[in-house]
């Protein structure tokens, strides 16, 4: 059951990103997805496999759901959150979008918890919420780096 729901949510994320009106270029969107993925996969390895703050299910189908969540859902939903508002939105709009998008990701994490895909030990949903907010900010950071160093360097 968990695998079906997670596959659907991953598919939903990919198709929404494809269909939605996007203020960012395809290279910017790709950069955000790759960067968030790199950060998230390392964070999950450190907190889950090394520190054991979170453990994942040893049932193969549930483990597959965990992998799909880590690989697709986190980066795609964050990039959808960032693309859901115009590029030159006010800071209040941006903060609101980040808070709502992070809340959606926490709801998805609740699905993982309720189906025993992951178990929290020294971790809780507040940490997850703060972590997802941080991931959004890192998404804006890589965007800033791209526009400041890569694009401006290309124009010079």
């Amino acid at each position, binding site marked *: 059951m968990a695998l079906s729901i997670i596959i659907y949510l991953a598919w939903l994320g990919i198709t929404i990103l*494809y269909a939605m*009106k*996007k203020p960012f*270029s*395809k*290279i910017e*969107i*790709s*950069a955000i997805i*790759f*960067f968030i*993925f*790199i950060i998230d*996969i*390392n964070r999950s*390895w*450190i907190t889950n*496999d*090394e*520190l054991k703050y979170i453990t*994942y299910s*040893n049932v*193969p189908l549930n*483990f597959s759901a965990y*992998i799909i969540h880590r*690989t697709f859902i986190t980066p795609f939903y964050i990039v959808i959150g960032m693309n859901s508002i115009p590029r030159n939105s006010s800071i209040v709009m941006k903060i609101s979008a980040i808070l709502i998008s992070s809340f959606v990701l926490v709801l998805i994490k609740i699905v993982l918890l309720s189906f025993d895909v992951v178990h929290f030990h020294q971790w809780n949903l507040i940490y997850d919420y703060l972590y997802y907010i941080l991931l959004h900010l890192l998404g804006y950071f890589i965007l800033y780096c*791209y526009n400041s160093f*890569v*694009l401006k*360097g*290309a124009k010079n």
Partner: protein
Amino acid sequence: MIWIGNFSLNEISLIVMNVIGYSLMTFLPKKLSREVAFISVLAGVSTGMLFDFTIGGGLVDFYKQNDTNHYELFDLFYYSLFAPFGYFFMYFYHVLQINKITFIFYITAWSLIGITVQWVFTLLHILTYQNNYHLSYSFPIFLLTQTLTGIFYMFITSNNSRKLN
């Protein structure tokens, strides 16, 4: 988590390979636009990490990087090697002007390069297979990742529009 483990052949090899890889990236003539070069590096690291964290760890844990199955400082040196590979994949894709026909040869060649480099990594004890994993199993993974990277390159360079839609 450990810092270095036993500083030996694998750590020295990783330092040397990183120096060679990043030197080539720096000193070869710049053929890619800065945007594509930037994304090639991120794509290379992401693809490498995706497979290493998925089949090189977790439930399946088919191979060990460096001295232990835990995160080490030199694992980061290993992952940083994926950046030059990502860069050179797109670099030569552009330089050799790969089309639909030559795509087949290009992907096959890169998959063979990938499997050769992985074999060298096993000789240098950077990678140690476990749980009945064999080198040949990596070939379809390389074939898939290089094909997707080739399609991704075509996607990002397909038109001058900056928007996806």
